[in-house]
Each structure stands twice: as C-alpha cells, then as structure tokens.
C-alpha cells in the first residue's frame, strides 16, 4: 500500500526535468516562469519526502520558506514581464538582448 521512496524521487526528478526542458526550449517568458515554478515544486516534494523519511519537521519548515521565496520571485518576475511587455510589445525572450556585448 505504502509508496516507496524511490517512486517519489523519480517523480520529483521527472517534474524537474520537465521544468528544465520548458525553460530551455520555450521562448514565451510567461511559460518560462511557470516552468521555474514547476522546478521549485519538485524540490518541495523532495523536501517533504525526506522529512517524512527521517520524521522531522525541518523539511516542512524549508518547504514553507521556499514557497514564500517562490511567491516573492513570481511577483517580481511578473512585474518584469509587465514592464518588458510595455517596452517591447512582445513576450519573446530572444528580444531581450540589451546586455549583449
């Protein structure tokens, strides 16, 4: 009945890989941000799994912190998206080459 730890670990790595894949291949900046969320979420899953394995509340506290940081990061990221869209009229990340030397 109980699901083994390895299944959770594999699920979390698959989620993380999907996130990395999205960050690398997509050009829409909104979807890149969503894939970042996916990666953070898979790390949260791992934290909870190992917290359950070693029976401590530390992992839960870490997840709480990372959720807060993710919320702050998304807020800042979406503010950037809004200001970039005002300037460039597009969500294409290939247009963001202001820092290219």
């Amino acid at each position, binding site marked *: 009945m109980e699901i083994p*730890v390895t299944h959770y670990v594999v699920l979390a790595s698959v989620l993380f890989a999907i996130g990395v894949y999205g960050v690398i291949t997509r050009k829409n900046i909104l979807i890149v941000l969503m894939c970042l969320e996916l990666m953070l979420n898979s790390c949260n899953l791992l934290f909870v799994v190992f917290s359950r394995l070693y029976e401590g509340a530390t992992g839960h506290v870490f997840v709480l912190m990372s959720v807060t940081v993710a919320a702050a990061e998304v807020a800042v990221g979406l503010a950037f998206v809004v200001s970039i869209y005002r300037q460039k009229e597009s969500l294409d990340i290939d247009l963001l080459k202001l820092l290219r030397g």
Partner: protein
Amino acid sequence: MVVSHKNPVSSAISLVLTLFSTAVLFVLLHAHFIAAIQILIYAGAIMVLFLFTVMFLNIRDSELRFDSMNIPKRMTFLFLFIAVVGFFASKLFSSSPVVFSELRDPENFGTVADVGRSLFSDYLLAFELTSVLVVIAMVGVLVIAKGRES
C-alpha cells in the same frame, strides 16, 4: 502539459492541475499543513497572479507565433531528457526499494502545531528574514511596475 501548450492560459491551468496533484501527494506523506499551504498559496495566489498578468497584457493570438515549434531542436532535447531521466530511474528502481518506516507519533506529525513549534523556535531567524525578503520584493515590484516616466 505545462510546456507543450501554446496558449499561456492553458499552461497555467495545467500547472494548477500539477500543483493539486502534488498537494495530494503531500497529504499521502502526512504533511497536511504543507498540502494546505500548497493549495492556498501556489494554486490560489500564484496562479491567480499568473492568470491576472496574462489577462492584463491582453495578448493577441498573432503575438504568440514567435514561439513556433522548432521541431528538431525540441525533439533533441526531449530525447536527451528521456534518456538521462530514464537512466537514473532505472538505476533507482533496480536498487532495493526504501520503504517509509512507521511514524513514531502519527497523531502529531506534520500538523500545524508541529511545524509551528519548529518554525518559531529553531528557525526563528530564517522566518524573520523571510518576512524581510517579502517586504523587499513588494517594494521592488511597486518600483518596477510603476515605471520610470511617472
């Protein structure tokens, strides 16, 4: 599904689905408080923020064309990821499965009281620093969104 949809709204809805499924896994792992936080903050607040931005930007369909399918590049990455993840997954599955032990006190593990006691005693400094971070993020967002001209 988050990565394959062209429309950001469909991606966001798929992401909500994924987050809910992860919350279900958290409940299975006796992390009830974290599951509630996951649904409230992630699936509630963050996704509303995403959808609000998508609606706010009022993107027309023609503007999403730039994200057209670059099939060979995508397929290359896809096969690469399947190969790497499959390799590690097969390694993990072939080793003997690690099973969770019985909880010492199943009544108490993962409850608000348990997490809160740890949060406000051992990790008090980290908690306060997180609140500072949130304030900084809020002020930063206001400055960025306000723009330079006004």
